[in-house]
């Protein structure tokens, strides 16, 4: 008995955590999936209703609007973060004296919550007293900047604040990648007469493929989950013009008593993340295996 205990102690030690993960992650996801197949409204009901909720979801204009917004947001957020992050990392890689300080400045927004970020940007984007007033005070009297209360533009204010918060992180990832590039390659290319610009474009950036991959996965992941920033900055408004799937889900779950529909939307989000993460994890793990 004692020997058995001793032999299995590692498993026994990890068992509670593992059980917790199995229950709270996998069990809960399954529960949500099952509820999405029922008629549940305010309280869960367990009789099977088929995929009716998914039909309801995909014929719901508000959901379409949220998905639309997510697409706009994701494309812009990922593209701009990559652009700024890569540019900054390359500029910082030019043996800058104040590099440490600048890096700290570019990255500090990551330490702030989305609620703090949203609150600060909400004030800066205030249509009458924020950036608009700043520019009129500076002499641009015709300047208008009302995106926060403009139905067609509100989604872009979320892009601005999200880029502000996350682009420094992409800079840090790429900078770490650039630092691992062998100096000899660059020197050799310079001797061959290549310009710095072409060295980066043709030699170094293609070597950053893994960093690109992980950056894109991280950014996609952030954007699918975006919730806090939307709530703090626009609360999905004006109207539902800056609604997103995560906001839709909590609205249906906690305010509209539509937990069946909410679960269906959560399952859609889950599947989207799955489609992005599983291939990524698979290639990551294979790469690690190849390295060892």
């Amino acid at each position: 008995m004692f020997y058995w205990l001793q032999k299995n102690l590692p498993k026994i030690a990890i068992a509670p955590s593992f059980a917790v993960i199995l229950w709270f992650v996998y069990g809960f996801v399954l529960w949500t999936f099952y509820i999405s197949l029922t008629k549940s409204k305010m309280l869960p009901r367990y009789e099977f209703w088929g995929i009716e909720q998914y039909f309801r979801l995909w014929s719901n204009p508000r959901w379409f609007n949220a998905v639309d917004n997510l697409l706009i947001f994701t494309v812009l957020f990922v593209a701009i973060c990559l652009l700024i992050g890569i540019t900054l990392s390359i500029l910082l890689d030019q043996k800058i004296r104040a590099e440490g300080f600048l890096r700290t400045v570019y990255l500090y927004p990551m330490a702030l919550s989305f609620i703090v970020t949203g609150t600060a940007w909400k004030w800066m984007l205030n249509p009458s007293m924020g950036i608009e007033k700043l520019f009129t005070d500076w002499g641009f009297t015709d300047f208008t900047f009302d995106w926060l209360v403009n139905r067609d533009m509100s989604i872009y204010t979320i892009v601005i604040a999200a880029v502000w918060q996350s682009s420094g992180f992409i800079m840090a990832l790429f900078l770490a990648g650039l630092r691992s590039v062998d100096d000899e390659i660059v020197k050799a290319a310079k001797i061959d007469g290549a310009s710095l610009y072409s060295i980066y474009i043709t030699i170094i950036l293609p070597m950053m493929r893994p960093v690109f991959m992980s950056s894109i996965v991280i950014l996609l992941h952030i954007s699918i989950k975006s919730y806090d920033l939307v709530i703090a900055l626009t609360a999905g408004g004006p109207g539902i013009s800056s609604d997103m799937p995560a906001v839709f889900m909590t609205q249906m779950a906690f305010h509209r008593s539509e937990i069946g529909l909410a679960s269906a939307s959560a399952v859609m989000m889950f599947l989207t993340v799955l489609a992005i993460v599983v291939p990524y994890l698979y290639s990551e793990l294979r790469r690690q295996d190849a390295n060892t």
Partner: protein
Amino acid sequence: MQTLDFQKMENIERSTSRKKTFYRWLLFITLGIFALFYLAPLYVMIITSLKSMEEIRQGNLMTLPGEIIFDSWKTAWSGREGIDAGNVFLRPFFWNSIKMVVPAVAISTFFGALNGYALTKWRFRGDNLVFLLFLFGCFIPYQAILLPMARTLGLLGISNSISGLVLVHSVYGLSFTTLFFRNYYISIPDEMIKAARIDGAGFFKIFFKVLLPISAPIIVVTVIWQFTNIWNDFLFGSSFSFGEAAPIQVALNNMVLTSTSVKEYNVDMAAAFIAGIPTLLVYVLAGKYFIRGLTAGSVKG
């Protein structure tokens, strides 16, 4: 030495080519403009919080306060005297967050270390699959577990309480902490463990006497990561708590939303800054570990 050489090199560059100087300046100006872009919201937040509403209406975002007043800070932190109901201020919620963060970070870090240790130093059949199942927990969109979690908290009788939030954060932090410690312990030579085993040390003795004493760096990284995430959380806080049990981010959001007759931007900004101070401080004091956590938490998992 290196910097001296570097300066010499730079001097040569300067004297030989004007074009290079021009590019150098362009480089610095670009970097400077970006620095201003990132710093602007912090600057605006701070100066707005130090102005009176009168001054805010007269000036603009960038104008410095004519007279620095800390009234907004006081109002944001402890409210105004003799004011109507619905007057939200941060002090009690700040303590809520502390009471939530400390146990949740401690629990998730301890079990993460134990899991990482068992997964790397006492390999067993199926350990890779177990790790993969942990790892995937880092990625799930929490919307997929919100509803069953709300019910579970209800059944346990801890919905809308700090203990409920401690449970939620401990559980969903486990994936990250296990990942951190597993990746750290895998690089520690197995010989250390073998030697201790020959000396007759058992599973827990090796963990506490051999491994934990050399785990300081990863403990710091994990604690900072967990602290930042839990402090900054809004989704769990707003879904599982309201009223008095809310953590600070939820309170901040309520404060900004529930405006009485006149919107007080200076108080909002002071409140936002107060809610951001703890994580900002950690970032400034231990930036290196913060970044290490970010890259470890995201790139590899």
